[in-house]
């Protein structure tokens, strides 16, 4: 079987040693050769000194999900060496720094060892202590490029991009790279039986992480006030917004910022600021992860009940509590859908790619202002912090932000009467006013206590019920506005289907493909939002058995489907990956196979 453009490389490094950019260089070089690639960082919650891994999957077929089974392990971390050797698939390779000899007990007969004296080479060729350390990473990239047929000029041009303005760094980097290549040429057979071959498969794709894409989306979506509290894995989202805003949002005349960013004292303050800014008519968001969602819940209830737009991004990580802060999960589905005490329900957007992070983030501000309610975009660590191959972003220059039902002074003057919480249009969405609009009309009191249609305090039961029912009506309107699911129709009369969402998409699509090749046709639906639109229930109704693929322990999306659509629980079969690593197609297939062998009751 041809193994061209189909293999997995894993790097084992010590964090804080500059390995990340070298590993990314490797991944990007494959992308530049036109071959689909996905890269995933598996890193500890630590600054320096602990084991960290980087996994690169090369896939001619364009499968971007994680794949189990390591074809070649590049190990420069003695701490994790024993485990790393054990993790290589039988018949695979282990590339290591042979400056020190391997322990005999680590050796395996069924894999091949490629020893490169990386430290020796660097000590011999470089004098600067920092270069000796950093170029170790470049030497192994050189060695790999020789083993895998990666084109030298591609690496050279990547160095050119990386060191724009610091061109004198290109030559020593190229030297280290060539040293790695030379060592392989002199000592080993190359290429390996799997290698990279230039293709034209990535087309106009770009490589970016979801957080950077969402930060850029917020700039395009018109966010002008950002409040946040640092938390992994959402921090880089706000950093990205700031970086883009500092380039793209400076007033050309005054040189001043057309945005404000405040690092809040905690997540409570972060969402409070975002709510205050939106209340006052500026588009504002905050980003956080699980622990922040817990803290923001009270404020989310206020924004829901007082009907204040706000955009929140939850880059999910493994919970509960502090959990595994640097590992991925989709475990905040229920805590965001129903965030806060009392009867609440929130709009969720669930992107699967950085492109969707960009689009949904920009759109989220429209949804929030149109619906006058919190809109929560749910991504996860895998999507947020890993660079993904994704479609380029597009923007329609004729697009006008939809600011929703906001009354101007002229409108207030011409209206016979106005009540902040009156449903004038039957869509559950009232008209709001921005402070300072009119000298004598349109002022009202925003409160989280029960209120009537005129925003006056009220404990009248009928009034309370009326307002609460209208809020449900508003969510019905939301269903027609937010993204509809993506359907995968096999064209065959399948009685089985699968449902997935977010970063399970790549692995699920791969599983569908493999099943199809095995002769099992299966239909599928990718959820993109909550509350569920009618098509979701209609889809589920068509099948006898529906697998719900998730990356959490408690089958949270399944619970939400059962609760919201009154689906019989037996119909929805859980496929749950919750070990903190991104889900694989193999995992999905194993679960589906097991279940399909059992008869349907």
């Amino acid at each position, binding site marked *: 079987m041809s193994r061209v453009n189909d293999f997995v490389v894993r790097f084992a490094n010590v964090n804080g040693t500059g390995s990340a950019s070298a590993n990314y260089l490797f991944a990007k070089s494959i992308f530049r050769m036109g071959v689909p690639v996905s890269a995933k960082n598996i890193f500890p919650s630590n600054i320096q000194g602990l084991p960290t891994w980087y996994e690169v999957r090369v896939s001619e077929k364009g499968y971007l999900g994680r794949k189990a089974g390591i074809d070649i392990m590049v190990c420069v971390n003695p701490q994790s060496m024993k485990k790393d050797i054990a993790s290589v698939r039988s018949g695979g390779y282990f590339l290591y720094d042979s400056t020190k000899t391997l322990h005999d007990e680590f050796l395996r007969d069924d894999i091949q060892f490629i020893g490169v004296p990386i430290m020796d080479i660097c000590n011999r060729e470089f004098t600067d202590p920092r270069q000796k350390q950093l170029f170790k990473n470049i030497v192994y990239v050189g060695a790999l490029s020789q083993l895998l047929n990666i084109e030298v000029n591609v690496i050279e041009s990547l160095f050119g991009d990386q060191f724009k303005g610091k061109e004198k760094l290109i030559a020593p980097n190229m030297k280290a790279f060539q040293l790695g290549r030379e060592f392989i040429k002199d000592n080993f057979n190359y290429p390996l039986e799997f290698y990279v071959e230039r293709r034209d498969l990535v087309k106009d794709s770009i490589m970016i992480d979801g957080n950077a894409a969402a930060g850029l989306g917020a700039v395009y979506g*018109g966010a002008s*006030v950002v409040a946040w509290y640092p938390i992994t894995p959402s921090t880089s989202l706000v950093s990205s917004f700031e970086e883009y805003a500092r380039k*793209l949002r400076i007033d050309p005349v005054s040189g001043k910022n*057309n945005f*404000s960013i405040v690092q809040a004292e905690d997540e409570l303050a972060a969402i*409070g*600021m975002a709510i*205050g800014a939106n209340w*006052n008519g500026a588009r504002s968001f905050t980003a956080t992860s699980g622990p922040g969602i817990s803290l923001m819940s009270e404020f989310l209830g206020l924004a829901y009940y007082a009907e204040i737009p706000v955009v929140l991004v939850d880059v999910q990580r493994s919970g509960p509590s502090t959990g595994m802060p640097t590992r991925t999960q989709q475990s905040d589905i229920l805590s965001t859908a129903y965030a806060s005490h009392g009867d609440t329900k929130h709009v969720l957007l669930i992107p699967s790619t950085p492109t969707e992070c960009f689009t949904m983030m920009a759109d989220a501000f429209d949804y929030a202002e149109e619906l006058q309610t919190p809109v929560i975009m749910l991504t996860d660590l895998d999507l947020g912090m890993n660079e993904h191959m994704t479609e380029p972003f597009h923007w329609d220059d004729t697009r006008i932000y939809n600011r929703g039902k906001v009354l101007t002074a002229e409108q207030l003057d011409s209206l016979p009467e106005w009540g902040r919480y009156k449903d004038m249009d039957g869509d559950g969405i009232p008209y709001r006013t921005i402070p300072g609009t009119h000298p004598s009309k349109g002022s*009202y009191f925003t409160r989280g206590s029960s209120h009537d249609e005129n925003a006056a305090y009220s404990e009248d039961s009928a009034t309370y019920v009326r307002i609460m029912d209208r809020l449900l009506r508003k969510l019905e309107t939301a269903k027609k506005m937010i993204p509809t699911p993506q359907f995968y129709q096999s064209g065959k009369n399948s009685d089985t289907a699968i449902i997935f969402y977010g970063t399970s998409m790549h692995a699920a699509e791969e599983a569908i493909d493999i099943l199809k090749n095995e002769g099992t046709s299966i239909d599928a639906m990718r959820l993109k939002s909550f509350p569920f639109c009618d098509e979701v229930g209609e889809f589920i109704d068509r099948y006898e058995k529906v697998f719900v693929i998730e990356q959490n322990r408690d089958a949270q999306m399944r619970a939400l489907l059962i609760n919201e659509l009154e689906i019989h629980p037996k119909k929805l079969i859980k496929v749950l990956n919750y070990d903190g690593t991104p889900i694989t197609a193999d995992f999905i297939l194993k679960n589906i196979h097991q279940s399909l062998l059992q008869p349907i009751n």
Partner: protein
Amino acid sequence: MTYIKPKFAHPRLPKNNLGYTRKEYEGSLSTLCAGCGHDSISAAIVDACFELNIEPHRVAKMSGIGCSSKTPAYFLSNSHGFNAVHGRMPSVTTGANLANRSMIYLGVSGDGDTASIGMGQFAHVVRRNLNMTYIVMNNGCYGLTKGQDSATADYGSISKSGNMNSFEGIDLCALAIELGATYVAQSFSGDKGQLIPLIKAALSHSGFSLINVVSPCVTFNNNPGSTKSYDYVREHNEALSSLDFVPVKEEIITDYDHSKVKMVELHDGSMIKLHKLSPEWDPENKLSIMTALHHAREKHEILTGLLYIDNESIELNELLNTTQTPLNLLTEKELCPGSAVLDKICAELR
């Protein structure tokens, strides 16, 4: 219930420069207990805004949760109000202010809302020097939940049920000065003559202004032995200064005794004319006011008046280098970089 006051007004009520009568600055009828100190503070806010010729709709009234936080309903009915969650008024006000720096932000809060549940947000809004006036209606107890001691109850104060408070009370003024507040005053709800000019100066100050107003709770904390009762505060009130607020454009008399009178110019050009009652104290000197507050505490005195002012104050929007145009007025034109820029960004990501 919120009661609506009759609209009828005497035709010859005095008008301010905007042509508004005092009525235009009032709110609905208070539902607080008869004699509540908070109502006097609401009345002082009405007077201060009327006299300052503030357009009511240019004010945002911000509050948290508690008796004090209900009061925005009782003044400035033509202003938008925001009753945030308990202790979180500062963050909502911060966001609102960043969205539109051109408005006046008036926050009212209580001792529970500020010194207990809201302590974190209070501390941080002070150190950010948000351009707002923050009035604490401080009665040393939780009124709405029937009179429990709050964190500003003084050590040794006796509650209505006869229990002595055995915890140290938090001095909000001293704390705010330490944290970098640029205008700090203390007053008593029973002294409208002192309170009104303090509010006017605070509203005119650019930066964070704290006015801690001791405001007795007639229902739960006005008993003998309480250090927040009307009688106690009247007996122990020690004014540091008396203050006249001199609005912009009004002629300033230059002939005064500099050892007793200090003129402080505010950001907008208005002036504070301070009649100093203590020779050791200088309102622009942190050390002198911290010393005075410590001495006062030892002597069981409540220092009132303007305590501290930094008229070189730089408020948050200036610190962040935000554009002068309110951010909520920016449109796609200023906010969205457009497709050509996006295509370029994408090209760099290939």
